């Protein structure tokens, strides 16, 4: 087999267009020429390297008056995503869902804290002094309970403060915490 024929088969092999009929010829060619084997392996590696370059996200062209504007396609995160979002409102639904989840989580947390409060042992009475329900009584159980509650609340708040992307949830929870 001459070099020209090998290059043709090599191109087809590298381009995924090698027919089954030519596959045997190509393999026989490689077996007979070790230097061409090295060339083939190097070419495969090169194609792999080229494929490693990050694929682009999709962009869309929109008309804005007389101007054509290029912008990343909404919802396009994966390079192979080519279908445009069918919901033209796109992002605002996402934000609405985040806010709804934040409030729901906030109320759930509030509810959980109320349950913990209800599960406290009865308040101790100090003789001669009626207890004010808003005044914390320094019993070991109450202290531990309130410390536990505050630390749980703080833990949740601090966890979300560490993640700015959830600032909406953190703001909600902080607001809920301050209201107690």
């Amino acid at each position, binding site marked *: 087999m001459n070099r020209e024929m090998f290059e*043709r088969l090599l*191109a087809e092999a590298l*381009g995924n267009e090698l027919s089954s009929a030519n596959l045997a010829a190509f393999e026989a060619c490689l077996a007979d020429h070790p230097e061409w084997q*090295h060339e083939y392996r*190097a070419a495969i*590696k090169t194609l792999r*390297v080229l494929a490693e*370059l990050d694929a682009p996200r999709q962009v869309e062209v929109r008309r804005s008056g007389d101007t*054509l504007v*290029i912008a990343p396609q909404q919802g396009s995160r994966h390079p192979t995503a080519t279908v445009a979002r069918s919901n033209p409102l796109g992002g605002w639904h996402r934000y609405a869902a985040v806010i709804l989840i934040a409030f729901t989580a906030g109320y759930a947390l509030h509810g959980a804290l109320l349950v913990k409060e209800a599960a406290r042992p009865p308040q101790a009475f100090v003789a001669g002094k009626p207890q004010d329900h808003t005044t914390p009584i320094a019993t070991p159980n109450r202290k531990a309970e309130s410390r536990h509650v505050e630390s749980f609340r703080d833990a949740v708040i601090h966890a979300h403060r560490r993640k700015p992307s959830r600032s909406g949830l953190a703001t909600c929870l902080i607001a809920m915490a301050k209201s107690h």
Partner: protein
Amino acid sequence: MAIKSIETRRDEASVAGAFEAHTNEVYGWAYRLLGRHHESLDVVQDVFLKWIGQCESETPDHARGWLRGVTINRAIDVIRQRRKINEASESTAPMAARAPRFAGVEHDELRRDVAAAMGTLTDIQRSILVAKVYDGMTFAKISEELGVAVSTVKTHYVRAIGRISAKLQPQWTREDLS
């Protein structure tokens, strides 16, 4: 109000039409080499400004092929400019002191190496390589777009890969080729 001629309106339609039809592809070709969104948008703008200039004299038969070639050339120019700026600002280190390239290489370095390797190709080799590797076109389609024989396309493709291999191979370890 000035009345535009049919010719002018048709030209405007072809410029805007090409922009709308091929922007994604142009952006994609640029991004593969540059890896940066805003630089890629700059290249898109440059390419279509050139397209407008080209259409004023003669509109290419195959818009996509023309745009691909110009985009790759422009992206390589941007990388070369970026490299000059980086080399002027960073301290020089002997090549031998650098770690092997493909053991966890940064993508910016990879892009620079690939762009430098592609800079050694001819225009048609670059176009064929990108059309095959990134656009997934068949040899027959590329042949039709560029107006060259299928066998010529295959030859250019193999030669292009061979030249890039030769440029990148010195940095590869034996394991890379196994």
